């Protein structure tokens, strides 16, 4: 029974995480991870955006090019 509950919980967590990824809720976490990954690399001196700055920046990027189809 416990095993079934654990599996169900894991499936729910995976589904929730996938949902957050699809709608963009996880975008800032992904950005921070990417910054950390390359901290020793090319973006060493770049300022890290705050959550609000990142949100506005991502909107500006997305809606400056064709992002929706007919």
């Amino acid at each position, binding site marked *: 029974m416990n095993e079934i509950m654990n599996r169900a919980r894991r499936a729910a967590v995976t589904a929730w995480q996938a949902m957050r990824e699809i709608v*963009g*809720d996880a975008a800032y976490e992904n*950005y921070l991870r990417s*910054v950390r990954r390359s901290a020793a690399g090319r973006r060493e001196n770049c300022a890290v955006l705050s959550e*609000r700055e990142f949100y506005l920046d991502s909107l500006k*990027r997305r809606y*400056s090019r064709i*992002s929706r*189809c*007919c």
Partner: protein
Amino acid sequence: MKFLRVLVWIAVAVAGAAGLAAIAFERNEPLNATWFIVAAICTYLIAYRFYSSFIAAKVLALDATRATPAERLDDGRDFVPTNKWVLLGHHFAAIAGPGPLVGPTLAAQFGYLPGTLWLIVGAVLGGCVQDFVILLCSIRRDGKSLGQMAREEVSRRGGFIAQLAVLAIMVILLAVVGLVLVNALKASPWGMFTLAMTIPIALLMGLYLRFWRPGRVLEASAIGVTLILLDVFAGQWVANAPTWARVFSFSAPALAIAIIIYGFAASSLPVWMLLAPRDYLSAFIKAGAVWAMAVGIVIVRPVVQMPALSRFADGTGPVFAGKIFPFCFITIACGAVSGFHALISSGTTPKMIMRETNARLVGYGAMLMESFVGVMAMIAACALSPGVYFAMNSPPAIVGSTVESAARTISNWGYAVAPQTMTDLAHMVGEQTLLNRTGGAPSLAVGMAQIFSHTIGGAHLMALWYHFAIMFEALFILTVLDAGTRVGRFMVQDLLGHVSKPLGRAGWYPGILFSSLLITGAWGYFLYWGVMDPLGGINSLWPLFGIANQLLAAVAFVVATTILLKMGKQRYLWVTLGPAAALVAVTMTASCEKIFSADTRLGFLAAANQMAAHIASGTVPAAQVAETSRLIFNQRLDAVVTATLALMVLVLVVEASYEWIRIWTSSKAPVMHEAPYVRTQWAEGD
């Protein structure tokens, strides 16, 4: 185990063949929609398992060891390595627009057979291949756009044509979706109130995401979707209160002007305020409605009432003029092959893909899903009684503007419909009339409402479901208008930058306003005169949109063929050259017919000449001469636009053929512009 797998695939193939045979040959009794679902899904499974795998292995030679731009250039902003299933969701949300819903609904005038076959076959051999191949080409070029690839791989002129085609398609697309919206909401206080309220709801979400909880899209969307559903419910009170009903009842021209003003405002406002939150809302409602429709069709299994081939296969249809070839293909457009998808496949998606091998699922798979949406729209439209379908989708110039005259005309065509049926149906869905609601959206909404109400709530929820469906269609048409006008504004600013530097600056407000005015004026012009067109506007504008869209697809296939040739894949050129040839044949034939046909409903010039003759003979009342002269000008303008599009196809084909011959005969060394191979640093399971 292998034997079992073979048996399973044989069973899928047999089921698919049975489904297609039932659709194609069953004539004696009404066909159940289950056959459509079986035929479509089995064909998709076979195509995905075998054809896409052949393209992946032999034609494109996908390489899982090659690092993608998402890995090499990962910046957490544009280049973001993304799980393939998440990216499939992203990509599908981006490519799914109103086209695959409206196109099949309009094409249902030929009967269910031609449209359904093209939706399925066109997608697996054309649309999916285009999306997949262009996606892979863009991945190997660090996410370059279709225009950039056309410029680098074909010629500078090819790139210019691609850019021009994008701008043309954008203007016509925005006008035609605006027209669909006008026809869905004119004189409909419930629908208008519902849609108007989405503006304050989107503004509230925008403030929430900008100031209170930046980036928490799920929370804001949950609030927004709840308010929207309450809004749909509240619409009936507005429709039943005479004072408020008057406030929210708009005539078609007034609605067109309101939409033009809205488009201008939405493209000039900061993106966080209205455009982004509306896009989130639209994506959620769209996903929900499409899934609900799929589940509803499976549960209800509606009987298709439209014949396999209607009498309008001869080109005399009231919804739009023209024969099955080429106009069924032009009308279906996005549900089978969409040039616009090539822009998405060479836009955001290639920058997010983790492995080359994922391109198959994302590129080919997402388009299969889009095609299935088109098949569902076809089922919903064909589940209506043909008499009702034609009464809703025919303009007053053909069937008259009273239920009696429409019923008489349509019954004479052999599709019986009683005046009382139309009156009762309008009453049942909470509208004053459903007559002459051209554009496809209202008839699709009635079809969806019938399926939904059979699943939940029965007949007394029909009005609520109808307005939910109208809101769903209107919401993402407005999103296309917002986002399209904004991107069009950037394109115009780009062009203006060559004339005046300040006008080209993205942050200079007078420049923003001026370019917004230009792009809104361009599509607004076509929209307004589409509304004033006595034949309903859809008859002229939708084929124009289809031609532009398929032209862009031809551009994409020509670029893909050139790249395959440079890759040394001569043996497999038919994979892209076949669809390219078909699309060129379709667009050229449609263009010639739209310009030169002597049928005044089909040919732009014939219609203009007929109206000019009426003015000359004095049969046009003096008060209408100015308006008729404007309609004549519009018909000639449409002819010029169509001729320009056709000319662009010809130039590109000639240009590319010259390039192909030079490469084939080795008189020119093929130069590829791929990013160099870099081995992935990720482990196999990543």
